[in-house]
């Protein structure tokens, strides 16, 4: 059964069609990649899935629920978490607080209970702290726990963004260029890390990535966007040999 079913969505900004007729089905445990030249509409597709942009037409179904016009926070609560292409951490909050914020969506205590530190709230707070600390430990971020998120080195910030997304307990994780700015060694580590969290947290992953090496290395399936249009979909091998894809990338940086 498909966990996420995106059916023919189109996103327009005024006269510009950023994404046109985009479809995707994502199964449990799958890692699917989304590539395409700059401005192809990849991030826009992400934003439509996560509710930040409302698609002009088409529908999105997640775990049997229609989420097409839902608010982003509701979608996250249902189990889709994401990272951002240009890191958006809560810079002035500590690393630990960044992760704790992502636990807030499951909090049962009312604000009054939280303010008065009632036992029920304290129990919840202790549990979320413990879990957050474990998560940060698992991501080798323990020693930065009390530092401001904004003061972390770039690579660690990217990791923290993933940690924060994981703390919402997602079923699907959307990663927008997680390897941006990393050298080959770092992106190799990242690949392993992504597979690891997929297994550990039982995730499906949908990722945008420019580094071919990463995409080809871990994605079971790849979609290629160009000018908003899906020009190819298939296994890494199919994509590598696809004439349209090569043309779309011609003259455009193929970093990696």
């Amino acid at each position, binding site marked *: 059964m498909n966990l996420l079913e995106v059916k023919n969505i189109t996103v327009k*900004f*005024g006269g510009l069609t950023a994404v046109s007729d985009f479809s995707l089905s994502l199964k449990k445990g799958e890692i699917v990649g989304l590539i395409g030249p700059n401005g192809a509409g990849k*991030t826009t597709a992400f*934003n439509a899935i996560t509710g*930040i*942009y409302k698609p002009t037409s088409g529908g999105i179904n997640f775990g049997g629920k229609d989420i097409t016009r839902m608010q982003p926070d509701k979608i996250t609560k249902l189990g889709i978490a994401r990272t*951002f292409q240009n890191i958006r951490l809560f810079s002035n909050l500590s690393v630990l607080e960044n992760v704790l914020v992502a636990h807030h969506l499951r909090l049962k205590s009312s604000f009054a209970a939280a303010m008065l530190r009632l036992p029920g709230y304290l129990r919840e707070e202790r549990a979320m702290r413990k879990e957050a600390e474990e998560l940060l430990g698992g991501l080798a971020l323990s020693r930065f726990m009390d530092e401001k998120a904004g003061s972390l080195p770039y690579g660690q910030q990217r990791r923290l963004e993933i940690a924060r997304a994981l703390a919402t307990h997602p079923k699907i994780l959307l990663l927008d260029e997680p390897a941006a700015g990393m050298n080959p060694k770092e992106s190799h580590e990242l690949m392993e890390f992504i597979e690891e969290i997929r297994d550990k947290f039982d995730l499906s992953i949908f990722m945008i990535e420019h580094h071919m090496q990463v995409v080809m290395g871990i994605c079971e399936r790849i979609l290629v966007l160009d000018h908003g249009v899906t020009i190819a979909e298939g296994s890494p091998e199919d994509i590598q040999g696809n004439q349209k894809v090569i043309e779309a990338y011609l003259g455009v940086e193929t970093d990696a």
Partner: protein
Amino acid sequence: MTFELFLQHFINGISLGSLYALIAIGYTMVYGIVRLINFAHGDIIMLAAYFVFFGVGLFHMPWWLAALFSIVLTALVGMGIEKAAYKPLRDAPRISILISAIGVSFFLENFGIVVFGGRPQAFYSPEVFQRVIKLGNVSIISLGIIIPIIAITLLLGLVYVVNNTRTGMAMRACSKDIDTAKLMGIDVDRIISLTFGLGSALAAVGGIMWGLKYPQLHPLIGIMPGLKCFIAAVVGGIGNIPGAMLGGFILGLGEILLVAFLPGLSGYRDAFAFVILILILLFRPTGILGEKVAEKV
């Protein structure tokens, strides 16, 4: 209500609306380029009226000269405010500029109280503006017609400048994308300064006419028109010049007609604009003519 009476109210509404439009333009132009609500814009209106008051009263200028002098001086003050209080903060968090703008507005009000005195003063109104004109059964004060004529002429002039001159083009470029405009060799500082000057000059005309229409001068007279004209700009779609005009007319007419038809609510006249603001924000947050822009994520 007889048709004549309605017509009278209608003309009155148009004349108030055209004042709002003149003032709203300043908000919209500045917002379009620097994304700042110039809180001091309302107080600029007050300054302009006082400049005329002192020009005539203290320096015995002829009325037209005092008005001219006031417009130039107000434009300079507007540009000065930008230089002193906004420019140094252009790269600062927006909240700092906002606070600075509030500070400037508050400063002008209190400065007015100290220098001009807190007591209301009567504004000079030359006789030409007070003639009664009869149109059939409707009699109107000449001011009621002069205001919209001057305002609409100026608005058309502004539209021409913005659409057909090099400076106007540069202004539009800055409001589309200020960084790109800079890269294209546009002197952004100059354009911003000019925008403040132009906006303030229009507000000055608005302020002087405001003084003629409501001849009670007080250092706080700018606040309510300031707030309402900002709302007018939002109603029309902020950043959009024809929108600001449309918003101004809607607010002016609406306010006058509300009081005309429901005199019981006349005490709440000032609240009308805010009800409109809420309605617009609920149903069309980008304003009537504003285009929808989704924040890029």
